[in-house]
């Protein structure tokens, strides 16, 4: 703890002395110093539903505004995932880790020229904790009490957490909104109507590197560079370099590809199955393909272990660790990778996603595809095979269950088919059941009417973000939902780990705690993970300084991207 504190103080001192006290620009490192001008054009699927960050619920809205128009106090580096200052230039916490002081960057202006101050931070917290405005930032900031926050001076705020929290820096990464514009509507009870898509785009005021100038529904969003932005390059030139940032809204994935081929866009997220073919045409098309490594998205099968909803004898099989491990050995990850991802995916074993280097435990227990091993485990658990080759449990019941997933998702449907084939090979009868997504979610989150489900979740960097899944009382504790108490010893231990984990401030010590959780999950396999796709992007060769990663994407350093003519 001491060490991180002093490092932060040092960083603050460097900033204060190195660059002068009044304007406090932030130097953004990049491979090359750029030239001004040009534009980045990308295509996305789906329209924003609102420009109000506290009403936005879907990525098609947040992708437009977060980081481009609105910025948090602290963010994460798109490459290293380490925390780095944004609107707060420095911060420190008290010895017991509960009181955090944030020193705000001075000389930052809203797009309309008004200065950003501590009042805006306080106002944003008022919004987050307003019960009339249901938003998902509040969920991360109730412990279960809200934090106490106060303004110390024009450029300093202080947050008091109910306990020491390792996740404090993530929790305070909410986007700051302007008090001078939104306070009046909020007091009149109109906050939930503010900044809808019918607002003139230039009235959406943030501090970010871009200002919105045009939104044509299902067509495009156009942003121009913010001339007063606070980041500078290594030579002190103001960022961003590019004049315009354009997001086209395409009707479908194929149209996105065609737009790139037609040079309407200059950056494109490449699908795994397209990589080889696009690689062959890269020279002619004048672009480069970048690999970003594995993503945070997951794909898994989960068995319903809740005896309140699953009748005997099924539930006894699902509760049996050896049964689940046998199924884990029957997951043919390589075929899945070849069929669905064109070979561009990696197997997943730990509940921590592969790109999360900081927390990932590499040597957890693995379950290579091996039906012989599955048979051995099933026999050890007391299952037997009849003369017809069918699998029976210790009471002579034939092993038969339903495996569901949502229809229209190629990854999940292929996984379902492959797994069902292998389980049939083991003598089980598996009814595959592709169904409506909403119905599936209803079943999954209520615990009713399902045996096994294939689905995916998107993880984040900090494991605590998944506490809703891993802790017994969590709303997404899928295999044993709706329980206040842990049902098994290992679940009790996992609950403990998450309680402890979020209060440890020393990063190294904290990682160790989550190692134990990963070992438990790999041993008990409540979720049997499949594979994680690798991600790729193509960008025209004239775009410089690209540092593509699965975490940050191609635009996390859009400030320093430039066009070489």
């Amino acid at each position, binding site marked *: 703890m001491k060490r991180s504190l002093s490092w932060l103080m040092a960083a603050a001192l460097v900033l204060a002395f190195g660059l002068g006290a009044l304007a406090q620009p932030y130097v953004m490192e990049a491979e090359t110093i750029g030239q001004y001008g040009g534009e980045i054009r990308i295509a996305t699927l789906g329209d924003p539903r609102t420009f109000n960050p506290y009403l936005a619920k879907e990525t098609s809205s947040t992708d437009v505004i977060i980081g481009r128009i609105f910025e948090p106090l602290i963010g994460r580096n798109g490459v290293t995932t380490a925390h780095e200052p944004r609107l707060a230039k420095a911060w420190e916490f008290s010895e017991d880790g509960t009181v955090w002081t944030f020193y705000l960057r001075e000389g930052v202006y809203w797009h309309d020229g008004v200065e950003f101050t501590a009042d805006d931070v306080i106002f944003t917290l008022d919004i987050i904790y307003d019960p009339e405005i249901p*938003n998902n930032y509040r969920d991360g900031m109730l412990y279960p009490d809200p934090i106490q926050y106060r303004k110390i001076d024009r450029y300093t705020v202080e947050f008091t957490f109910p306990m020491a929290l390792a996740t404090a820096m993530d929790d305070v990464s909410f986007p700051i909104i302007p008090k001078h514009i939104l306070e009046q509507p909020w007091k009149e009870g109109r906050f939930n109507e503010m900044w809808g898509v019918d607002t003139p785009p230039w009235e959406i005021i943030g501090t970010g590197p871009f200002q919105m100038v045009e939104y044509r529904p299902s*067509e495009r969003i156009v942003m121009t560079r913010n001339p007063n932005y606070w980041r500078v390059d290594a030579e002190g030139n103001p960022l961003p370099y590019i004049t315009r940032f354009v997001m086209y809204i395409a009707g479908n994935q194929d149209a996105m590809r065609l737009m790139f081929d037609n040079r309407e866009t200059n950056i494109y997220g490449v699908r795994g199955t397209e990589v080889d073919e696009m690689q062959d045409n890269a020279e002619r098309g004048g672009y480069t393909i970048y690999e970003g490594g594995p993503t945070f998205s997951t794909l898994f099968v989960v068995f319903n272990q809740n005896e309140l909803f699953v009748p005997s004898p099924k539930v006894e099989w699902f509760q049996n660790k050896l049964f689940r491990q046998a199924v884990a050995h029957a997951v043919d990850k390589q075929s899945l990778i070849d069929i669905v991802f064109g070979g561009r995916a990696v197997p997943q074993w730990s509940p921590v996603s592969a790109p999360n280097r900081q927390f990932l435990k590499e040597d957890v227990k693995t379950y290579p595809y091996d039906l012989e091993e599955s048979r051995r485990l099933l026999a050890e658990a007391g299952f037997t095979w009849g003369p017809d080759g069918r699998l029976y449990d210790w009471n002579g019941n034939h092993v038969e269950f339903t495996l569901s997933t949502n229809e229209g998702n190629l990854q999940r449907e292929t996984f379902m088919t492959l797994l069902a084939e292998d389980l049939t090979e083991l003598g089980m009868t598996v009814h595959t059941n592709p169904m409506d*997504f909403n119905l599936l979610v209803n079943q999954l989150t209520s615990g009713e009417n399902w045996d096994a489900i294939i689905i995916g979740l998107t993880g984040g960097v900090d494991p605590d973000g998944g506490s809703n899944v891993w802790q017994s009382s969590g709303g997404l504790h899928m295999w044993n939902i709706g329980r206040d108490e842990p049902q098994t010893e290992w679940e009790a231990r996992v609950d403990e780990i998450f309680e402890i984990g979020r209060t440890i401030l020393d990063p190294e010590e904290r990682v160790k705690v989550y190692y134990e959780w990963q070992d438990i999950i790999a041993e008990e396999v409540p979720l049997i993970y499949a594979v994680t796709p690798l991600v790729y992007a193509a960008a025209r060769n004239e775009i410089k300084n690209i540092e593509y990663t699965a975490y940050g994407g191609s635009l996390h350093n859009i400030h320093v991207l430039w066009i070489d003519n």
Partner: protein
Amino acid sequence: MHAFILRRLLNMIPLLIGISFLSFSIMYMAPGDFLGELRLNPQISAETIEMMRAQYGLDKPFIVQYWLWFKEAFPMPGNWKINLGRSFQYHTPVTTLIGFYAFNTFLLSLTSAVLSWLIAIPIGIYAARKQYSFGDKVLTTLAFMGVSIPNFFLALIILYFVVRWELPLPIGGATSLGYDELNLWQKIVDRAHHLIIPTLVLTTGSTAGLMRYMRSNLLDTLRQDYVRTARAKGLSERVVVYKHALRNAINPLITFFGFEIASLLSGATLTEFVTSYPGLGRLLYGGLRANDYHLVLGGLMVGSVMLMLGNLIADIMLAWADPRIRYQ
């Protein structure tokens, strides 16, 4: 005639209420609601979801939900505006959203309708008059191809060749970057430029169908006794075909025209998706996928009104074109 129109217009009111109630019931009974997707987000707690449900009125009984929508959607004492309800996703009146897209879809459908009628009618007449000639056979073959190629497939093929041959055509959108700075004439040209691909796709199918329709109608009438009589009277072939036969052959097409009006705002969804054209279909399909009842209902209301108006206009035109038809 005026009484007839008035009666038909008044009839629309109970009909619309009935349609909205039925549609609302069906959507309500379908599994899941607008918040389904959020429930799979580990960062959002069940309490927040419950608060959102309450905020959107999704926790209320079916009939109350319908009434809440109804009250906001239609003119009522104290609130005479029609806003078709407030979208869950957008927090905005549905009429505002529809307004964003209606012009684009209208423009596309109208262009394609006008084009297909302008092409299909003369070709249909030609094919009927020259039945079984070489020209008729070529046109018939083309028409069958046009009818049988699905819109989305045709669109993909066209888009593929646009990119392959580097034709100077845009892949999506209805306007170019910087559209707002153009003068009126440049704006028209820019719009037309963006309309080429979607219009081509939409027109191909409808022209083919319409042409076959025109051909067979005219063939039917040309075999009627009164045509033979007209010819026997010694009238010129021109007068026989265009004055006697054609006016009778066009009647069924007027009904067709009524449906064409109805589809002006709703007939191009698939084409809009494949060609990335910013039309109403994309808005409403998005609403349907997200279980945004209010948005979908708003779209259905607009579609229903257009259908009823289209039918009414067709009926009026029929009376005008055919003296035998009279309304009381």
